[in-house]
């Protein structure tokens, strides 16, 4: 593959890398696993890049490949220990904004989302990314109505996890 292609890919990926980081955050626990998945997604994006024609936005295309990798292709390595390390998250918050109770609730929510299965995580991810149901349905290959129904069920499930 030509160097030009490589250069434009690396540049676009560097600019859009948070898409991948956010997927890694939902699908992995621990720094090693995060890096592992990030690398696999990057490789898959690069492999699919020659087919990316630019008729959609780089980010829209990247969402699909990245989610597909996390749900379908990625093999969890043995190195990743399933401990949840949300405590170490860096927050960029102003002192004024700081609300202890709210902060605690957010932590619990991340933990609850981590307990969902891979498909449910994908729906939550796209929901958090403000994707509409049409795009969610198109990415996963399900109907729009059922995507909506499923999202409501997930909300119920999360409620149950939070208040057992």
């Amino acid at each position: 593959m030509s160097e030009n292609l490589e250069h434009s890919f690396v540049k676009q990926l560097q600019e859009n890398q948070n898409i991948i980081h956010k997927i890694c955050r939902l699908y992995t626990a621990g720094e090693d696993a995060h890096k592992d998945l990030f690398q696999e997604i990057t490789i898959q994006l690069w492999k699919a890049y020659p087919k990316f024609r630019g008729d959609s936005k780089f980010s829209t295309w990247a969402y699909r490949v990245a989610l597909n990798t996390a749900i379908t292709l990625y093999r969890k390595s043995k190195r990743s220990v399933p401990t949840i390390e949300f405590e170490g998250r860096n927050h960029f918050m102003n002192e004024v904004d700081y609300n202890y109770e709210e902060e605690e609730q957010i932590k619990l929510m991340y933990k609850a989302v981590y307990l969902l299965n891979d498909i449910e995580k994908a729906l939550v991810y796209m929901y958090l990314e403000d994707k509409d149901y049409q795009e969610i349905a198109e990415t996963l290959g399900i109907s729009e109505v059922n995507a909506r129904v499923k999202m409501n069920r997930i909300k119920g499930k999360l409620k149950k996890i939070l208040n057992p």
Partner: protein
Amino acid sequence: MKELDLLKKDWKKTENSFEQISETEIYKMIHKKSSSIVKWIFIISIIEFVVLNAIGFLLPDDTIHQLGWLENLIQVLNFLSYGLALFFMFLFYKNYKTISTTSTTKKLMESIIKTRKTVQYYIYSILATGLLAGIFVGFYLIRKAFIENNQSVMITFFESLVLFIFIAIILGLVWLFYRIIYGFLLKRLQKNYEELSKIDL
């Protein structure tokens, strides 16, 4: 859901909290090897094709020459199995090529499962032709031993036993591959596929 809205707010806020990966690091990454399950399915399938065909080569040639009229039948089965191997390899390659990370999640999973099934069907077809040949040869040998050569029951039994062990080893190998693939590679994918299919029920 209140909590989910809260999470969404935080999600947006922490957008820039990830340690950024440099362009140099990305360059390095794209030259590393993938460890995706598709790659492993590809490698293992190739091994299966090779191993199954190698077993065909290892079969003792001299027994075939003592089979009289059966010899021709075995030859036909032999050619048939090569034809089958080529046909399945073509199908396998075609299916493998349709695996694309840019299709929908469901489609992607379907094409992986389909690719895997191609190899499985190949194994079944090889086992079926092998079994067919085994039955023919077995009957022929037993008939010959008893009627023409007056061979003792002991020797016939011993010969049958060797044949049986050989078939058992092949079946064992097939089972092993099956376990490796389903145990380590496809378990999670199958689970996710079922989960996704359930949504559209």
